[in-house]
């Protein structure tokens, strides 16, 4: 599946189609698409099974920069997650502990979870960090931009992959 900028709508089961959150999201797609010309160009990627095997940038990320990003408030990760960050007093508990992520998931699996976790679980609360379509009422400051850049995603993937237990 290529070209994330115009993600085709996948077939939904009956239960999905009647899910009450779907309608506003679909309406959002129609409203958002015309504005996409001005949007940041996302790099294309291929999803194979539950992973994006290839680096978005074609290069390996930097785990040290990745760690700094994960604990930074602006990346939003530790609003929900906790993990091996003893220096961080405030961590969330809405989501799994990130410790040992690299033992549970391959780099490619981690990459897809960051790029678009909703492909794996349509009801997830985890935001899609590298996606601009299918969103509703995005604030002007953030409109047309993914939450993280391809470089930032690769840095975080490198860091998470290094978390072994």
């Amino acid at each position, binding site marked *: 599946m290529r070209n994330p900028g115009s993600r085709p709508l996948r077939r939904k089961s009956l239960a*999905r189609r009647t899910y009450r959150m779907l309608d506003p*999201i679909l309406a959002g797609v129609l409203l958002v698409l015309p504005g996409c010309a001005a949007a940041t160009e996302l790099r294309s990627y291929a999803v194979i099974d539950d992973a994006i095997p290839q680096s978005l940038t074609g290069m390996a990320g930097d785990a040290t920069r990745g760690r700094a990003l994960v604990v930074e408030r602006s990346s939003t990760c530790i609003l929900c997650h906790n993990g091996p960050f003893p220096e961080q007093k405030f961590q*969330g508990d809405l989501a799994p502990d990130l410790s040992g992520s690299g033992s549970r998931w391959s780099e490619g699996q981690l990459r897809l979870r960051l790029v678009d976790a909703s492909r794996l679980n349509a009801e997830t*609360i985890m*935001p899609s960090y590298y996606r601009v379509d299918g969103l509703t009422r995005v604030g002007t400051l953030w409109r047309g931009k993914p*939450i993280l850049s391809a470089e930032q995603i690769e840095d975080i993937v490198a860091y998470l992959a290094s978390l072994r237990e």
Partner: protein
Amino acid sequence: MRFLGAIAAALLVVGAVGAAEIPQADRRSGYSFMKPDTKTMQDDDTANPGMLWVLNGETLWNRKAGAADKACADCHGNARASMKGVAARYPAFDKATGRPIDLEQRINSCRTNHQQATPLPFESRELLALTAFVARQSQGAPIETGADPQLAPFVAKGRDLYMQRQGQLNLGCTNCHDDNWDKRLAGAAITQGHPTGYPLYRLEWQSLGSLQRRLRACITGIRAQAYDYGAPELVELELYLMSRARGMAMEAPGVRP
């Protein structure tokens, strides 16, 4: 009650996916999530900073204003009697506009129509003070908002907004306040989002603030476009939240972290 029953039934029909509404018996005010010292601050009038606005509001209540040269008290008398339970019914249906209006908007409509004075800006010291003073007269009263059948379509709109995912983080109010209210978002306890204490003093703001200010903060938090103060959508959200909290006790002026 019948209204809530209808929503619950509708949810069952729509399907088992996604959020369930919080059962009546499990509803909790934001107060119950606070540390003991913050609770004490709310409970003790001499320590509650919101009382400064209430006292200020009492002065304004009795002060003549506008071309009509009338004070609120000239029409409404003693607020302790005339305003008792009023805030617990807002937002309420406004015949003139055919829409719900919140307490701030009601106060401003009295200013323009009866005092012939200019409306007070949202979040201005005077409007917050008058709102706090009026709301204080309902402290302890059960919330009754939404009983008027004319409000039903607006409650439904507010509910849709509450359920809808939005913003760059693609979250709906329900994702936090129905599904994750027993958890923590970084350092902050996620409450059930019941608007029992407004206007309230927020330590982070170092000020009293309205429910609309709180809603705009959550909307910006999910990186969505915040509605302007007074926008119909914000009033519909207020209306839905208040009717969702029906039966819970009013706390204004509350204190929150």
